């Protein structure tokens, strides 16, 4: 916390044009893994076929999430070998799985829900873990990176198109996008709109998740920064500290809620769009 405050102090005293840089330092991706005050790890730069695929902070946290998910979920899956009714952590996982299956996927996708369940479950657990890991100390939110949410949205896009094509065939699916029995003149307007909507859906998914995760973190940082902004005025600072901490705790709790809700919304909307692609007649 000491280096944190001094860096803030420096930026305030220097009065550089970007005073908010230190906030974005915590939110934006970077080439280094900051474990202050212990150390800062420089991440390796890699390039593949001339493309820059350097490992960044968010990639490291993605891997942490991936390893965490694989270990915990496989361990809880193992428990089912021994007994039909496992206890403890597996039970928590089971509640989430059953919720996603019965409340999200079954009602939206319909009969063929089993085919899409593994993907949607992975999406939910992946996003929720990414959201939560940003709230932990030294944590960073991979879903606060537009590249990550965009990639997840691209997966959703393909899942939606593939589900529709598997159900209706390529020709049938794209024909079914336009409503039947409509004036041919209107098709001139409707066809571009429908094609556009294919892309706006995942685009909205990506932006929604990214914006929600980023906004919460910015609010958290800004509330904490009030303490350092008032550093020049001793008594004002003392007065401002409890308020600042109380509000950041409130925002932190709100962030937990948002992390859950955004993971739910992403999964639910992907499931809904898959359902819409499968049941085009509605």
């Amino acid at each position: 916390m000491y280096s944190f405050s001094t860096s803030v102090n420096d930026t305030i005293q220097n009065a550089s044009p970007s005073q908010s840089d230190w906030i974005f330092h915590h939110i934006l991706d970077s080439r280094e893994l900051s474990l202050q005050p212990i150390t800062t790890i420089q991440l390796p730069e890699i390039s593949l076929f001339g493309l820059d695929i350097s490992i960044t902070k968010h990639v490291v946290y993605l891997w942490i999430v991936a390893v965490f998910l694989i270990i915990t979920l496989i361990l809880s899956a193992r428990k089912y070998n021994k007994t039909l009714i496992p206890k403890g952590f597996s039970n928590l996982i089971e509640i989430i799985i059953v919720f996603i299956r019965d409340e999200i996927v079954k009602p939206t996708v319909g009969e063929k829900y089993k085919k899409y369940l593994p993907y949607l479950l992975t999406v939910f657990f992946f996003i929720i873990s990414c959201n939560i890991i940003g709230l932990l100390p030294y944590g960073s939110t991979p879903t606060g990176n537009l590249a990550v949410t965009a990639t997840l949205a691209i997966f959703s896009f393909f899942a939606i198109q593939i589900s529709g094509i598997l159900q209706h065939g390529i020709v049938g699916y794209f024909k079914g996008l336009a409503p039947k029995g409509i004036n041919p003149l209107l098709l001139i307007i409707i066809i571009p709109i429908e094609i556009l909507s294919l892309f706006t859906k995942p685009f909205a998914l990506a932006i929604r998740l990214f914006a929600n995760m980023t906004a919460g973190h910015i609010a958290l940082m800004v509330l904490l920064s009030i303490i350092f902004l008032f550093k020049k005025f001793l008594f004002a600072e003392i007065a401002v500290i409890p308020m600042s901490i109380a509000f950041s705790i409130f925002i932190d709790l709100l962030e937990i809620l948002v992390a859950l809700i955004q993971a739910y919304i992403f999964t639910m909307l992907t499931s809904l769009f898959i359902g819409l692609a499968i049941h085009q007649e509605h």
Partner: protein
Amino acid sequence: MNLIFLNEQSSPNLLDVNFGVIFWTTVTFIIVLFILKKFAWKPILKSLENREDFIRDSLDKANKAKEEAENLTKISNDRIRQVENEAKEILSQGREYSEKVKKQILDDTKNETKKMIEDAKDEIEKMKEDAFNTLKSQIALIAIESAEKVIQEKLDKEKHTQIINNYIDNMSGKFNE
């Protein structure tokens, strides 16, 4: 304070999309998806389904057992009712029979007593008659004796002979027949 969108080219932008991150996200997500699908979702979902089937089966079985138990109770209740009815019938039959027997015995005794009374009456009548007859003969004897005594003293010769004659006549007539 600069807005995030107006940052200089050099500083990283909030809306930057880094190709490296996209690449690594894709790789990570695909690996996680396949590993979880194979080693986590498949066994968990399968055992969840198994458990649901098991619960459904158990409920079905329990329902069936309940129905069976209800049937059995119904049957045993029916049996009990039947037995009760039978017992009632047997009881009423026994009562009827005993009533009949009682009546018969009563009738029999009544008849017998009646008969006995009648017999007694007959006997009495007979006795009476006997007694009467005995009395009559006695009376007749006494009368004859007394009459004999009277007649012995008062009968004259003439009348005496007439009577004897008549008697003889009667006797002879009898003999002649």
